Each structure stands twice: as C-alpha cells, then as structure tokens.
C-alpha cells in the first residue's frame, strides 16, 4: 500500500536513534583528538623516504634516479641529483638526492611514485595530522622531513615492510654471491671492477 515504505523507513531510523543511546556498537564515532582508533594497516596517504640504519643521510635508499619525479601525475616531486657519490646499503657508490622535496598540498596520494621506484626507497605514510599555519613552506616537505627509518616503515606497514626487506635481502644475497663469484677467480683484480660496477648504474640513470 502507498506509504508503507515510509513507515518502514521511519521505524528504521527510530531504531537507530533509540539504539544509539543504549548500544555502543551503534555509535562508531570516537572523540578524535582524545580517543583514537587503532590504525588500519592498509592506510596510506603521503609518500616518505626510507632509510636504513641510524643516520638518515647516510642510509637513504634513494639514488636520485628521478623516475618518481617523471611519473608523478601532479608533478609534486622535485629532485636535485648530487654531484658526488656515496656508498649505499649494498656498499656500491651511488648518487644521492641533494634535494628531494614533495609538495603535499599538490600530492594526490596516488602511490604511483611508490610503484615505479626500483629501489624501494619511497613508501606511503600513514601520518595525517599535517595541518600547519604556513600553507606554502609548511606543506613543502624537504628530504629531512621526508626521511623516515625502516623501523618506522615496519611499524606502520608491517606486512609490506617484511616483504620489502625479504626482497632486499634476496637482492643483497644475490649481489654478494655475484661479488664473491667475481672475487673468487681473479682475486688480484678485485679492486678493479668496483669502479666499473659503480659507473654502470650512474650511466643507466643518465640514459
């Protein structure tokens, strides 16, 4: 009959209204700054740079290959490559970003930078309390503010970080084996291929 649906709907909302006073699971809202719900693992909002070890500048995984800068749809990443090289986690000398800025007021959280990064250097953060009184400088994050330790990454995305670590360890093992294999037959020339090997990734980046 006409009007039946309206009555049903009214009953449903009345149930909601009354129920919100008696049962807690009908009120899913929490009082945000005082109470917080446990973070969900899949949460992700803005990118950050991962570093290994204790020193953020030394342990930075990023090699300033600038792939993310080129892929970023809103062009919010700005990278300046260093002139010199430093040894990375594998011991290979690599370029490092002299400047790495992300304008998170432009960033659209698409995660494309994370997907294209070949070095597992950029990952998504869960930090969302980014409000600031300085709307230009405060939202343009430099590499110091972007750099976060691998432990932090493990804390916010444990599963994903474990996978990444496993993959990196595998690569490192492969690289070690290769180095060992290279070192074993001609121990005399062990010092020679190192600069050549170091030159190759740099050349690739330029290409």
């Amino acid at each position, binding site marked *: 009959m*006409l009007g039946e649906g309206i009555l049903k*709907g*009214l009953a449903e*909302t009345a149930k909601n*209204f009354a129920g919100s*006073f008696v049962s807690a699971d*009908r009120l899913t*809202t929490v009082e945000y700054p005082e109470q917080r719900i446990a973070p969900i693992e899949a949460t992700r909002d803005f990118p950050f740079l991962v570093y290994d070890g204790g020193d953020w500048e030394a342990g930075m995984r990023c090699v300033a290959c600038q792939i993310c800068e080129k892929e970023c749809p809103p062009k919010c990443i700005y990278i300046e490559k260093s002139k010199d090289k430093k040894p990375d986690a594998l011991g290979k000398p690599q370029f490092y970003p002299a400047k790495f800025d992300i304008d998170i007021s432009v960033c659209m959280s698409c995660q494309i930078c994370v997907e294209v990064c070949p070095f597992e250097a950029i990952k998504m953060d869960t930090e969302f309390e980014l409000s600031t009184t300085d709307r230009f400088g405060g939202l343009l994050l430099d590499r110091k503010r972007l750099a976060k330790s691998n432990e932090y990454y493990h804390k916010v995305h444990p599963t994903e970080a474990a996978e990444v670590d496993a993959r990196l360890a595998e690569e490192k093992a492969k690289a070690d084996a290769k180095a060992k294999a290279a070192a074993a037959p001609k121990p005399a020339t062990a010092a020679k291929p190192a600069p050549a090997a170091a030159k190759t990734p740099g050349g690739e980046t330029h290409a």
Partner: protein
Amino acid sequence: MIENADQIFVLLQAWLLSFLPAAWRPAAGVVLDVVAIICVFPALFALTTVLERKGLGRIQNRIGPNRVGPLGILQPVADGIKSLTKEDIVPLRADAVLHFLAPLVLVVAVFMSFAVLPMGRNMVLVDMDAGLLFFFAMGASTELSVFMAGWSSRNKYSLLGAMRAVAQMISYEVVLLMSSVSVVMISGSLRLTRIVEEQNQYSGIFPHWYIFTPWGLAGFLMYVVAATAETNRSPFDLPEGESELVAGYFTEYSGFKFALFFLGEYLGMFAISGLGTTLFLGGWSAPFSFLGWVPSWIWFFGKLMLSMCVFIWMRGTLPRLRQDQLMNFAWKFVLPMTLVNLMVTALWRFLGEGWEQWVFCTAILVAVYVLMGRAEMRSEHFGPRRYRYAE
C-alpha cells in the same frame, strides 16, 4: 496558584503595563507582545538547530555537535557569532536592492503570521476574525521573497532554485488551504481561538481534537505533507538540493543575510507547525481531561517542539523527491484526496452523532486512499520513471 501559572504571561504583561499611564497601555501591550514573539521564537530556533543536528546525528549513528558548551548546547551561539562576523558578499551584477530586501521580506512575513496563533489561553496577539486567512495571506507573501532572492542574485542556480521553490510552494499551498478548510467546515469559524475552544472539550478523559476523527486524521496527514513541502523541508527540499543546485535560491547569500534566510525557514516551520497544532491537535488544550491543570502554553509549545521533532525525523529518513514526482504527487494524488476529504467532512457534518458517521467516513477515506494509491503507483507519471532512449 495553578490558574496563575496558566496565565503567568498575561499577568506579567498586565503587571508591566500597570507602570505606564493608561493612555499608553494598548500600544505598549502590543509592543510587549511583539517583543515576546521576537524573543521566544528565535530562541526556539536556536534550540531546534541543536536538536536537529544532534537528532540527525543519532539517526545516522553519529554523536552530533558536542564541543561548544556542555553537550554542545551552545553550538547555536557559536554559529550565530560565526554568521554575524562573516563577510556579507553581494555579487557584482546582482540587483543590490532586491538582494537586500529578500531576506527581510521573508522574515517579516513569517513573523507576522505568528500574530494570529493562540499560544495559550488568552495568549494571542491579534484575535482576528479572519485569522486563518491572514495566516495564509502572510504565507503567500513568503513566496515572493524567495523569488526576489533567486532572481536578484543573477545566478542560474539561484534562479532555478527559486523557480522550483515557487512552483512547489504554490502547488502545495492549494493542498494546505484545502486540508485546513475541512476544519473550518466543522468548527464554523476562521477565528483560531474559536477553533481551539471547539476542540477543548472532553468526552470521558479524551479530548475532541480533530485529529481523532477520520476526516481530521486524513486532513492532518495531508496537512503534514503540504507543510513539509511548503517549508522546503526534506524530502521536499529540491529548491535547495545541494547535489544539484548548490544551495538553491540562497546560494549567493552569506553572513547575516544567510542567517536571516535560515531563521526565516525555521520560523516558517514553527508557524506552520503552530497552525497545524491549532487546527488538528487542539492547540493549547491538554491531551487528557485530568491534565488540565498543566499551563496551557506548555501544551502549545510542547506540541510545537514535538512537531519539529517529527520534521527532523522525516528529514533523517526520507530521500529527496524528483521534481516531476513532486508535482505529480501534489496535483494528482494529494489534491484529489483533499477534495474527497472535503466531501467526507460534509458527510460527517450531515450524518450527525452516531456510529454511522464513523463507519461511512472511515470506509470512504480508506477505500479512496487504497484505490487511488494503487492506481497512481502503477501509472507512468507516478511510479519509477521510464526512459525513452536509455533502455
């Protein structure tokens, strides 16, 4: 003591007036009444906004505002301060005079309609002989302010919203009038105090409210539908449908003028709920004869707030209608129903006391409702829309 509580405001006014020379008293009395109305209803408006936001929150499993003051009851104060301190923006090509006048006309017209509502025993500003007509005349004037707002803004959303609002208000005003006429037919007066007096009688403990008769119940339901549409409340809030028209006719309003529109809208709801209370729910009379000792104004304002709660409840429940559904509903279902209801009311009057009037009137109304509802729901204009090319 109890009589004093009932008449406390009347006595208070008389006491205040006793300080003035006799020649000034009539004018001063009117001024006092007006000031009282201008103070009480905006206060109720503030209360209602809190109720609405918290109630809607609960309906949607949220808590609602709870930061300003204990339990958030000072929220309207914060809102008021915010809207007062906001910049008043007038679009460059807007018609500045009309843009300024529109909210004023709305609020003034709505305030005027409170003049004839009996808010308690002996508590009515002007006991007009044609009170009901006056109320509807003032209600009709608000349409013009809506049009002025929409047209003067020079914004297509405003204009579209205003046209929708005016078309909707005109259509449902017919229904509103027609459903009220049945009350006038039985009570034999357009004087609202007289209509309340007619209902302030009891058989046993039950009152003679018009809602407790078949035609009264039908009339009340249609009155509620028309009142919701007339005040542009959900589910009839197409004129300000946010998803389509930004904010309808007050898109280009900000600051205090926007607050005035907001106030006018809620005052309109109060006025129309007050009239519905007066016409169908016995005005200030008590729901049971043994509760007659409670002051009459408590009953009136209690019923008023109760009907506001129903408005909020409906807003939290029903989705917005489409424009063609709205118009078809008004002209093809509700208006014929009100006409049938008028016939039934006449029948009720002429059948006289007895069980026949109850049986016949109920039977006719239920039969017409069911049959017409079935037929309309099946018809192409009323049910789900069929697209000519999309399917």
